[in-house]
């Protein structure tokens, strides 16, 4: 085991630990503002994970989109709804919560079992996931150029159609958001009784 790997794993564990704590904080913090703060932390940790995974462009995008954009949206949401009775709206102590936690635990165990046993089996025998360390050459190339240009090329060549569709989606989302959140008619009209005089 080389030193490089130990440092790498140290960083990984540190970030992952903070990430999980922050994610748990999002869900279980008693106040919504704390949740928001831990969400920002979580997003930044995710960006760190991306950096560890050689994805610098994605990491930067993560910081910009999640760490700033979505966070602002959330803050807006919190402020616009301005709930005073925040404490009351913490967790739902219901049967479904138990079910959810149980199921989530089960799922986690399942995935754990799968990745520790199944995937190695699969990868060795069927070669479904040819898991390998990236070659040194590629890493060096990436270290030299970064992923930005590669992603940019990919987006505008191979993935140009999804890219354009995505732009449409974003446009639709913007317009939709305005329409939905914009001031509607004050009184809703019941279509079944519209235009009828009461008998």
């Amino acid at each position, binding site marked *: 085991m080389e030193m490089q790997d130990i440092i790498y794993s140290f960083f990984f564990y540190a970030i992952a630990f903070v990430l999980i704590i922050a994610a748990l904080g999002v869900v279980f913090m008693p106040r919504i503002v704390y949740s928001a703060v831990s969400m920002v932390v979580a*997003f930044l940790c995710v960006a760190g994970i991306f950096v560890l995974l050689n994805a610098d462009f994605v990491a930067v995008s993560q910081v910009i989109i999640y760490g700033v954009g979505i966070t602002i949206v959330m803050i807006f949401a919190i402020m616009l709804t301005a709930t005073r009775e925040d404490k009351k709206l913490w967790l739902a102590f219901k049967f479904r919560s138990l079910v959810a936690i149980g199921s989530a635990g089960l799922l986690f165990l399942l995935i754990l079992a799968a990745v520790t046993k199944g995937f190695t089996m699969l990868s060795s025998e069927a070669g479904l996931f040819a898991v390998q360390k990236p070659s040194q050459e590629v890493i060096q190339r990436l270290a030299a150029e970064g992923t930005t240009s590669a992603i940019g090329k990919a987006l505008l060549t191979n993935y140009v159609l999804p890219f354009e569709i995505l732009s449409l989606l974003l446009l639709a*989302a913007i317009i939709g958001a305005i329409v939905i959140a914009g001031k509607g008619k004050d009184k809703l009209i019941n279509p079944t009784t519209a235009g009828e005089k009461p008998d």
Partner: protein
Amino acid sequence: MSWEEILIKLFNVELTHYIVLSAVLFCIGIVGLIVCRNVIRVLMSIEILLSAVNINFVAFANYTDLGDLKGQVFAIFIMAVAAAEAAIGLAILLALYRNKPSVDTEEFKELRG
């Protein structure tokens, strides 16, 4: 398996670690989605979920085809969708809030059969 081997496996960070991490995040997101009573927190949980997925994509991209970066491109797409989702989510939240001044998920039961 001896302790050493386990330690070596733990410190030799591979795809498995990332998948486990994303699984943990995913489970937390799901739990948050179901357990939280505040709509905003539910929205946040969704973001956590999406992040978990993103980690998965990027990890696979890193360990299977770093040359091609498909996973990273996909992660970009997902981010864009997440941004759209967040915007729409906020809009719906506000529209809901206008009809019923509450962010309590227990209060929204209009679809009750």
